[in-house]
């Protein structure tokens, strides 16, 4: 559940800031700003976009996702599970000849193993995606920003975290301003 839209009235609550957030009206504007933030050497920062902006990973310096490796592990597990299950049930635990056919053969075990490969890959892919993204996380400082609703609609944001070694409230704000950022605000943690 989001806390977007709520405003903190007590200024002492914002003692420890999460970082700075700047808005951008267009995708190309965000793209160029992201390149500048990347070149300034920041590591703990992010872009908020209502849709996947093509090419933004490169502009941000984000490496290729490792989800495929998790998917591969899931797929191999699924295939082995299928083959092992069919061998164990039919040729080991309770041997039963049906239609004079062999107790186990990779041929008849294949379709079920194939389906389990896909099933386990799907679970691994989605599970991997959630774990890598640190989701579910229903509370997040970014979601407290009163404008974040438009980040799911038609506006773009750059968030630079205060934890970043290069973060300096004044200089970072100046960098975001120079990059074309609008409505620059501090995010409370």
């Amino acid at each position: 559940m989001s806390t977007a839209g709520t405003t903190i009235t007590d200024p002492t609550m914002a003692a420890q800031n999460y970082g700075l957030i700047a808005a951008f009206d267009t995708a190309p504007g965000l793209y160029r700003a992201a390149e500048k933030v990347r070149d300034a050497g920041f590591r703990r920062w992010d872009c908020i976009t209502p849709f996947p902006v093509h090419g933004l990973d490169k502009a941000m310096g984000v490496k290729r996702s490792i989800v495929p490796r998790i998917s591969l592990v899931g797929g191999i597990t699924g295939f082995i599970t299928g083959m092992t299950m069919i061998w164990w049930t039919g040729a080991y635990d309770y041997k039963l000849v049906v239609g004079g056919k062999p107790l186990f053969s990779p041929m008849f075990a294949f379709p079920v193993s194939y389906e389990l490969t896909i099933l386990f890959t799907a679970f691994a892919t989605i599970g991997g995606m959630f774990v890598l993204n640190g989701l579910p996380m229903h509370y997040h400082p970014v979601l407290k920003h009163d404008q974040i609703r438009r980040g799911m609609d038609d506006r773009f944001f750059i968030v630079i975290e205060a934890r970043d070694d290069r973060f300096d409230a004044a200089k970072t704000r100046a960098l975001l301003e120079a990059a074309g950022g609008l409505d620059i605000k501090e995010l409370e943690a």
Partner: protein
Amino acid sequence: MARRPLSPPVARRKRRELSTDMAHVESSVPAPAILQEVNPAVFPRAILVENNRSFAWITDKICGIIEGKTPAWWWICFVIACCVASFTVAGITYLISTGVGVWGHANPVNWAWDIVNFVFWIGIGHAGTLISAILCLLRQKWRTSINRAAEAMTIFAVVCAAIFPVFHVGRVWYAWYLFPIPNSNWIWQNFRSPLEWDVFAVSTYGTVSVLFWYVGLLPDLATLRDRFEAAGNKLRSFLYGLFAMGWRGSNRHWSNYEMAYLILAGISTPLVLSVHTIVSFDFAVSLIPGWHTTIFPPYFVAGAIFSGFGMVMTLMLPLRAVYKLEDLITQYHIDCMCKITLATGTMVGYAYAMEFFIAWYSANPYEGFTFINRAFGPYAWAYWIMITCNVITPQFFWSKRVRSNTALVWILSIFVNVGMWFERFVIIVTSLARDFLPSSWGYYSPSIVEIFTFFGTFGVFSVLFLLFIRFLPIMPMAELKAVTPQADVHGGHDHH
């Protein structure tokens, strides 16, 4: 701005000379010298969102459907759908309380409407996966406006399909015997049987379809969460937010998300092909004439896509009219769907012809008899309905005038649905009714309980689909925004 449409004769002349890839060169990049020499045609890319709509317009349009007051037509349709669905409930209640004998199956036709309806509904589901997965891999961006509804259709169709085999087992409280769960008999499932493969294929298909659909919904649920939060609707904001998993549009998340989505598309493609292949194995692995043929897997898959696109058009064209979605489901989308229907319908027609040819060429008297019997025997009426609806109907889509007439396209799509139901009926019932021994021949007619149960599944499907269009975004907003020109960070409109 180099993508102005050329006058048709120029475009047509140049199409022969050049590959379409040339048209994608950005205007801002200096063109390589070779392009001056060959003078490539600049093809206009099909516009996927018409009237140059903004991001906010897309959000308001799609979310407005959910946020607005429930329209009167929705309630009327919902009540009718519930009444229709009650036929399935009544039919199944009667079946459970009495026994599976209340269905019209009897020797020699022991598979009939139940399996016909099962294959029919599963086939309908396949277009949803085709649109979401195969067209995603082929980078057919026109899929974006129809994929959400098509995936929903897949899931609801699988629900309807599952009803039939589950209740056909007779004692439905033993349906869990289909899965390898230890039981008091100590005995395990027969994994040599295609019917057991089918259990795994269909349950995997249902599960992966739900997962794929849910992952696609994730960013849109976050949009709805924030909109309901802003509107002060705490309960709905909480519910959408719960399922949005705290999605916040982070690009580091999008990076993993897009990779996951691509992989899901990549595995759904072999999945959808394997599911109908395995469904066809239910028949092809047996020894019944007319079933025991190697053409079945590709023929079933083509038929499934054909029927699925028929159903997509049956559902989407009224939705487009009711919700005024002409800017999002454009004439180009309808053209594409009609062409796929035409292509797969023609493949199905080819398969019918090839079955006849092989029946003759194999010189197998049983096989030959089966096909003559299909076309001219006691079920000839069903065969010719099938041929008319599946082979002749789609041929109208060659004409651009037909494709532009939305009402006519909708009527033709109904014929496709009817034709594909009859295809399964013809395959299953005619082969069983007249097999090897004339002494065991019979004629099958459905019982009233079967008719009720099948009729009711249209209500079950409609109830689920109506709930979907009322409570979930019917189009993937994030994906639609990504195919608009202003989403392009290099060639889009930048006013700064």
